[in-house]
């Protein structure tokens, strides 16, 4: 590439007539970039998506969803056995890593994996944990799954909590976003994409929870901004409260758990939420 001999000087250079403030701001934007945690999470997400895409390319959809989890099993078995102590950092490495989400989901914290086996679509990855982590309650929310429900793989049978009432009633404010989605129907693929995006964000949050709670909280915040009342909003709150507890922000955790209880009174996660903040009760 000839080094643009006719190219003008870049504004960030001192000699240009650009305003000093503009120059500073240009340098500030040049400094933007992912944090190490964000980069690692991205690497994991890209690796998992690439692996899923590769598998989906040669198998039928239904088969793909049962095959995808196996991609990571071999590499993650060791991590799985040490899942209680392993931090996401130990898994990333410099190469794209596949299937680690399964390894990083602790048995007791398999909220997301289980939720996704209910609500998730084709690119669903976390089956092993959802089987072994049977303690996690399932949100009974067939409506939340929407059209994706049809694409739902013949996944593991999911235990339903009997003590919590299914389909938690939502207040009108909570209903607003889903109602809009139906009233103003986007192409199903759009909805599929947004579900996939929701899942990705929370998958990332869930992974970060063990070792990088601040990153987990940031990811839940990203989810909250994009999908305030998304199909996985309850899962997000559970992860966020867990992150706050890990960060030692008990007061914030309790406040958020209280808001959750008020907003989703019949939530299948109610008990889990109480347990999370109960452990910090004075």
């Amino acid at each position, binding site marked *: 590439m000839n080094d643009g001999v006719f190219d003008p000087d870049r504004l960030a250079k001192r000699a240009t007539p650009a305003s000093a403030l503009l120059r500073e701001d240009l340098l500030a*934007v040049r400094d933007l970039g992912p944090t190490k945690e964000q980069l690692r999470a991205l690497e994991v997400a890209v690796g998992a998506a690439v692996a899923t895409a590769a598998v989906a390319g040669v198998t039928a959809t239904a088969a793909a969803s049962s095959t995808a989890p196996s991609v990571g099993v071999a590499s993650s078995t060791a991590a799985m056995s040490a899942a209680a102590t392993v931090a996401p950092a130990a898994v990333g490495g410099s190469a794209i890593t596949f299937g680690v989400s399964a390894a990083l989901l602790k048995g007791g914290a398999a909220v997301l994996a289980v939720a996704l086996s209910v609500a998730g679509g084709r690119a669903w990855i976390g089956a092993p944990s959802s089987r072994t982590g049977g303690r996690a309650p399932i949100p009974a929310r067939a409506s939340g799954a929407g059209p994706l429900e049809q694409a739902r793989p013949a996944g593991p049978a999911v235990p339903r909590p009997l003590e919590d009432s299914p389909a938690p009633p939502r207040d009108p404010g909570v209903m607003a976003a889903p109602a809009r989605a139906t009233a103003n129907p986007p192409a199903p693929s759009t909805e599929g994409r947004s579900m996939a995006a929701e899942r990705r964000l929370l998958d990332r949050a869930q992974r970060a929870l063990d070792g990088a709670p601040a990153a987990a909280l940031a990811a839940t915040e990203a989810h909250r901004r994009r999908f305030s009342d998304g199909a996985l909003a309850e899962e997000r709150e559970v992860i966020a409260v867990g992150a706050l507890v890990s960060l030692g922000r008990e007061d914030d955790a309790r406040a958020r758990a209280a808001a959750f209880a008020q907003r989703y009174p019949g939530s299948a996660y109610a008990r889990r939420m109480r347990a999370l903040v109960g452990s910090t009760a004075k």
Partner: protein
Amino acid sequence: MVAPPTSGAACGPACAAAPAAPGALTFPEIFATYAPFVWRALLGLGVREADVADASQQTFLVVHGKLDRVDPTSPVRTFIYAVCLRVAADWRRRAHVRRELLVERLPDQRIAPTQESHVASREGADRLLAALDRMDPAQREVFVLYELEELDMSEVARAVSCPLPTAYSRLRAARRQLAAAYGDIEERD
């Protein structure tokens, strides 16, 4: 050229990376090299911070999908930035649709202590990004690739697929607009 997908599933990460050309970077290498630039470019191109991780992922999935079809005579960097442009345009449209759904930040969002020293430059970055938001997207693309990502203008023209003179004129227009915007800011101060 393309590794059979089955082998990708059977033998792990390296197999999934189909080399674009002999001697070319493998996909994991491309990721390691370009991920921070992709992230920054997407921000510069108007992807919201909350979306940039997803948009980056999308960019790399597209890159991965097209790696075996990329023109080997063209630098992979140009190709990656071209993908960034398309992905960012897509996210800008979505952000526009979604804007009304956005809610204010939770009170529990504090700035971590380690970030406090960056607050000033963060403000500066936000100021420039806001100015870019008001710019014509075609001009913005040229400006970002040239001034932030430091591509040569010929590379910029190729990435945005326009003739070189058009790229120059877009850059000039973008600079004029920013100069005016910053002139106003400084007059006010």
